[in-house]
């Protein structure tokens, strides 16, 4: 079978799956929010409200597209795409499952795997900030601009801790490839990087919350202070694209946490598992982190901006530096 065709099929499959998952996540978010607040949540569209994302999508398509007066029209149109595209791009290297046979063609359930995939994700995901800050700036609104500025300041301060936490794992494994990192955690639950790098795990999870602009670090939106933050002036599908970007980024970050610290697609104590079991294991582990995103959002209040900066620069950065240093020392002395 033609390898290009396999590639295209895999891409369609993974992107279709993840975008469906992102749509489902919007429903899950409202459901979890409702449950935590002793409510029922959406249950009118379809059984148990499962068609709610579809209804929302149709609504978004039919809404009027507004461009505010004085906006930079080109950047205003470009910004949502620039926010959504990096999140989708970083999806390309996530290994969803191991080897699988595809009509007699052996391949892996990952769109690409190159030797530096662990660095590729933060590098590409970091570009998402351009969409947010340009969206904030080009809408010619003070709330949007403040939201964009805050988002950029926040992302810069947390990206460092995020990358250093990845670095600790990479040093442990001795490879920048996500596949090697997963292979390095083969075995039982006790072989997961979670136990070898607990501090890096905590730092990474906290940093992913900041990286994806989720509560308690959602300063880019910050409804009570900034109306809607960087997307105040956006409507219709442009707004939906920002949302899609945010949810895909959540999925990417949850998958990355799984891959780096929870053994990725490996089924514990069953290294010879077929690909669908591996995919299932991956989805279960990832869903836990996706649930954590929602769970934390509806539990914790938002930080104050100076608290956020203090936490980022005075706590997480030194801790992650120390963690990387100690890990490097131990590895080199061994």
């Amino acid at each position, binding site marked *: 079978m033609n390898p290009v065709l396999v590639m295209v099929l895999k891409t369609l499959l993974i992107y279709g799956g993840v975008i469906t998952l992102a749509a489902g996540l919007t429903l899950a978010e409202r459901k*979890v929010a409702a449950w935590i607040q002793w409510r029922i949540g959406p249950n009118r569209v379809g059984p148990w409200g499962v068609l709610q994302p579809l209804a929302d999508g149709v609504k978004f398509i039919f809404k009027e597209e507004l461009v505010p007066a004085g906006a930079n029209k080109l950047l205003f149109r470009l910004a949502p795409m620039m926010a959504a595209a990096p999140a989708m791009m970083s999806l390309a290297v996530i290994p969803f499952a191991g080897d699988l046979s595809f009509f007699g063609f052996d391949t892996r359930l990952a769109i690409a795997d190159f030797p530096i995939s662990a660095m590729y994700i933060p590098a590409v995901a970091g570009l998402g900030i351009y969409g947010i800050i340009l969206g904030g700036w080009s809408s010619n609104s003070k709330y949007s601009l403040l939201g964009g500025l805050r988002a950029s300041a926040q992302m810069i301060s947390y990206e460092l801790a995020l990358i250093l936490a990845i670095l600790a794992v990479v040093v442990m494994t001795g490879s920048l490839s996500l596949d090697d990192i997963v292979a390095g955690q083969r075995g039982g639950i006790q072989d997961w990087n979670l136990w070898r790098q607990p501090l890096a795990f905590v730092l990474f999870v906290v940093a992913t919350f900041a990286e994806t602009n989720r509560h308690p670090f959602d300063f880019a939106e910050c409804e009570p202070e900034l109306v809607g933050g960087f997307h105040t002036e956006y409507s219709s599908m442009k707004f939906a694209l920002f949302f899609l970007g945010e949810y895909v980024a959540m999925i990417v970050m949850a998958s990355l946490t799984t891959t780096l610290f929870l053994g990725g697609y490996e089924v514990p104590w069953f290294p010879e598992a077929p690909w669908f079991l591996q995919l299932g294991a991956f989805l279960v582990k990832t869903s836990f982190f996706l649930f954590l995103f929602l*769970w*934390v959002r509806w*539990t914790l209040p938002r930080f104050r901006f100076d608290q956020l900066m203090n936490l980022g620069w005075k706590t997480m950065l030194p801790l992650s530096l120390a963690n990387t240093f100690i890990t490097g020392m131990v590895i080199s002395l061994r």
Partner: protein
Amino acid sequence: MVIVKRKELSLAERLYLPEIARVLSLSFRAMFKKKVTRQYPEEPLPTTAVTRGQPRLVLLEDNQHLACVSCGLCEAACPAYAITIDGGETDRPIEREPERFEIDMLRCILCGFCEEACPKDAIFMSNELELADFSRQALVYDIEKLKRPRAALQGRIDYFYGANDRWRKRSSTS
């Protein structure tokens, strides 16, 4: 002057994480609590005799004629000018009945003054609360829409007299 001493935080509290774990367990347990949502259209609002809903006209025992004699007291009592009455003659022992009795439900403020003003027990505040339609004209209710058999309003009528009796007793002792 009051000096408020700030509470000293323990190490665990200053680390955030144990406290975050504590509050997360709290909100996780909240997810399994009994839901407080009322599924409104399927699950209607609970009403009691005290519920002061929309005013309705009471029918006599024969379930045909209104108890109303179109005296116009409710029309006069209505602070929102929602009631319009045109009186008419009948051949029955009760010689008068309304030819037209309209309540503009968009003007009605559900105050219950009409109920208090009525000398003939002809108008009472029912437990009907829902009010929605597509035009203003459709919400001007006429006799056909307002009339109810006495049994449907009995709870409110009993409550009304109970409350009035209590008031009368209190005023007679003072």
